């Protein structure tokens, strides 16, 4: 069934410790329960990276939020599994070296942006930001000579400075780091919530962090995961029972665990203490819809 996937993982077997110390994560769409196959993996190794061949019907990993209920996640196109895995690899490699943490924020024009680059001192950025505000706010009166050229200069200036503002205000805003843990992965991460403007962006970042192959710094480099770590991560059976979707939850200031996405973003920011990417099978009591869905899923597997 498996093609040339590394480590010879077979259907239903989770004790896959690949020889190349590679693993790939994918989670299975709830609408294809029969093909559920989950392999957990983090690929830190580079150059000879090989992906598992995931069974057909599996799609990219996704983390669910309250938005996803009750509507079911649409099926992934039944394209060959290798292409879906390899395109995730490509994406990972593309970002290699420049986008390693959740701190990086996409620039206004869409190119990826890196923390602390270009190397401009915070003092200067702050100064430019407030000048942008000034230029935008002030109208220059027509008693000035060369009024026309001035306003056009002002426009030209504000264009650049607006970007200082858009970007530096994101970066220079106080960070709000919270811990994120994903079930089955012993290593927690941290994410800066203030670097994201919406739930969608946050989920995307978390998916990149936890579910996609971890980008390496240098395709020719040498870091691989140790075997010991593999063992830790390769937690078995729970991932196999088909309810392998993941749900994003958070602990609020009162210590309750809630499903992410129900309240307005700003309100979420003010009450979140930490995040947990939970297996839906564990996410009981969070939302009635969720429970119901779990129940449906489980019964399919019996």
């Amino acid at each position: 069934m498996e093609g040339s996937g590394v480590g010879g993982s077979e259907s239903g077997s989770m004790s896959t410790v690949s020889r190349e110390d590679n693993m790939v994560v994918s989670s299975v769409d709830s609408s294809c329960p029969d093909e559920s196959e989950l392999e957990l993996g983090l690929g830190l190794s580079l150059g000879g990276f090989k992906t598992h061949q995931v069974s057909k019907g599996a799609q990219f990993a996704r983390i669910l939020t309250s938005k996803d209920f009750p509507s079911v996640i649409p099926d992934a196109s039944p394209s060959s599994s290798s292409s879906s895995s390899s395109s995730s690899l490509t994406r990972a490699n593309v970002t290699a070296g420049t986008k390693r943490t959740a701190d990086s924020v996409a620039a206004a024009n869409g190119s990826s942006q890196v923390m602390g680059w270009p190397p401009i001192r915070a003092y200067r950025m702050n100064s430019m930001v407030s000048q942008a505000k000034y230029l935008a706010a002030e109208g220059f009166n027509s008693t000035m000579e060369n009024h026309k050229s001035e306003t056009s200069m002002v426009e030209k200036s504000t264009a650049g400075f607006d970007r200082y503002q858009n970007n530096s205000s994101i970066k220079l805003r106080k960070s709000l780091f919270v811990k994120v843990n994903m079930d089955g992965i012993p290593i927690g991460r941290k994410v800066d919530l203030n670097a994201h403007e919406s739930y969608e962006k946050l989920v995307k970042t978390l998916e990149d962090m936890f579910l996609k192959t971890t980008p390496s710094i240098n395709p020719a480099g040498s870091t691989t995961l140790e075997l010991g770590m593999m063992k830790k991560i390769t937690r078995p059976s729970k991932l196999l029972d088909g309810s392998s979707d993941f749900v994003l939850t958070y602990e609020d200031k009162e210590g309750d665990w809630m499903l992410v996405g129900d309240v307005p973003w700003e309100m979420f920011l003010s009450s979140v203490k930490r995040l947990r990417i939970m297996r839906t099978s564990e996410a009981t009591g969070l939302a009635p819809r969720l429970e119901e869905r779990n129940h449906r899923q489980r019964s399919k597997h019996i």
Partner: protein
Amino acid sequence: MQKKMMYSFPDDVLEHVFSFIQSDKDRNAVSAVCKLWYEIERWCRRKVFIGNCYAVSPRVVIKRFPEVRSIELKGKPHFADFNLVPDGWGGYVLPWIVEMAGAYPCLEEIRLKRMVVTDESLELIAKSFKNFKVLVLFSCEGFSTDGLAAIAAGCKNLRELDLRESEVDDLSGHWLTHFPETCTSLVSLNISCLGSDEVSFSALERLVGRCPNLKSLRLNRAVTLDKIANILRRAPQLVDFGTGNYASELPPDVLLNLAGAFSSCKELKSLSGFWDVVPAYLPALYSVCSRLTSLNLSYATIQNPEIIKLVSRCPSLQRLLVLDYIEDSGLEALASSCKDLQELRVFPSDPFGGEPHVSLTEQGLVTVSLGCPKLQSILYFCHRMTNAALVTIAQSCPNLTRFRLCIIEPKTADYLTLEPLDVGFGAIVEHCKDLRRLSLSGLLTDRVFEYIGTYAKKLEMLSVAFAGDSDLGLHHVLFGCESLRKLEIRDCPFGDKALLANAAKLETMRSLWMSSCTVSFGACKLLGQKMPRLNVEVIDETEPPDSRPESCPVEKFYIYRSVSGPRFDKPPFVWTMDEEGKIMH
């Protein structure tokens, strides 16, 4: 015979001779000659510079140098400027002030860079040092105008208060009123970083008016254009002036008044500030331009032809800081007008935009290098570069001591040949034999490091980002750069091998910063174990580094030599690798 001669000098003669020796390097050399000289020297050392506040404890300094009058300390790693060092990392000055308050009652000068200074520290300074004269807080943070009020009120002989680029909690402009009416000693006042909208202007005016020795005054943005003329008229002896706001909608006679005020300052050589500048008021400066040696327009949003008009009037200019609005055409004007130029810094007006909207290219820098052979220091942000341009620059400016090039998009190749920029930077290090500081950018392979290791023998500080292919790159630098003191690297594929092979080198340097590279936790542990005189600090904001296997790369680490062992003020996200291979926290 010679021995007799040496001991025949009484101590105070030796001391007198030593008093002519000012540089730290020379002083250190003197103290190493013999025990006697060590003793005499240490009692008469008045100035101490400590490049890393954690390299030595205050007590050790005080014990060796009991009569210090002036101290300079630096705290956070340089990359803290770009938000790469998390908040709370350290660099607190209070422990130093506390120790010095007891030991150095005659302390006169404190200069700090990248340190955390609290109001408590400032109050302690004001209370403890009766003859305190100079306070320079460069890029510091943690204090408010309340602390400044304490300094103003308490330091009766204050000469210099310079807050350049510090982050001050600006609670109110009233702190200026705390300078007593008897204070007439100010020589330098730099409050340009203060943010508040109100400044006690009348207090400022009076202060300026009663300090006849005031040579340097840098105002903040709260001071509007119409007020500048008044200030200048009270201080026509000013040599260095930083305007506040340079925008106004006032009637045209303000321009005349301002022009008159500027022209009355016959000593004025240096100008800065120019926030929110309205070009119509620039002609007020024209009378000063011919004398100007330093001009900082890097916050001024003016464009050509205004920049060209200004710069062309400054034939004596030695130092220019400007935004990329100057464009290649402006740099051409600069090259033909300012033959004495020694330092040029061009900052990006739009660092995050994808496409450049100003026509500033490698050509501008080439033109300046051809026209201004005295150039020593370059900082240049641009979008594209070629090897050929770099070679020309290198050959035209052999006196360069500082060269920092930032091509905004990481890993940008030579845009004409599509090759890496190894050869270009290689030319820089080969031709500029006195190069002390270098920052790299663009597409670079291990080759550039080979050049650097081979030629850059005087290089003291190197900044590297998104460069190199393998450990060989790092090895070239650590092995070849004999004068290297500070090395900071981010996002490069450098791992354990080069670092461990050159471990001994690290003790000859002040510090090494590496982030987003591939150095493993195991290597950091090993270094900490084997090199007791190095503090190996791993920075990890997610988990303790030993919760992962040893082969996992660490996100950030900072290694520095120290005679005082690991520090005790570490935040939770910093771990020191100690001699027993444990991680200390």
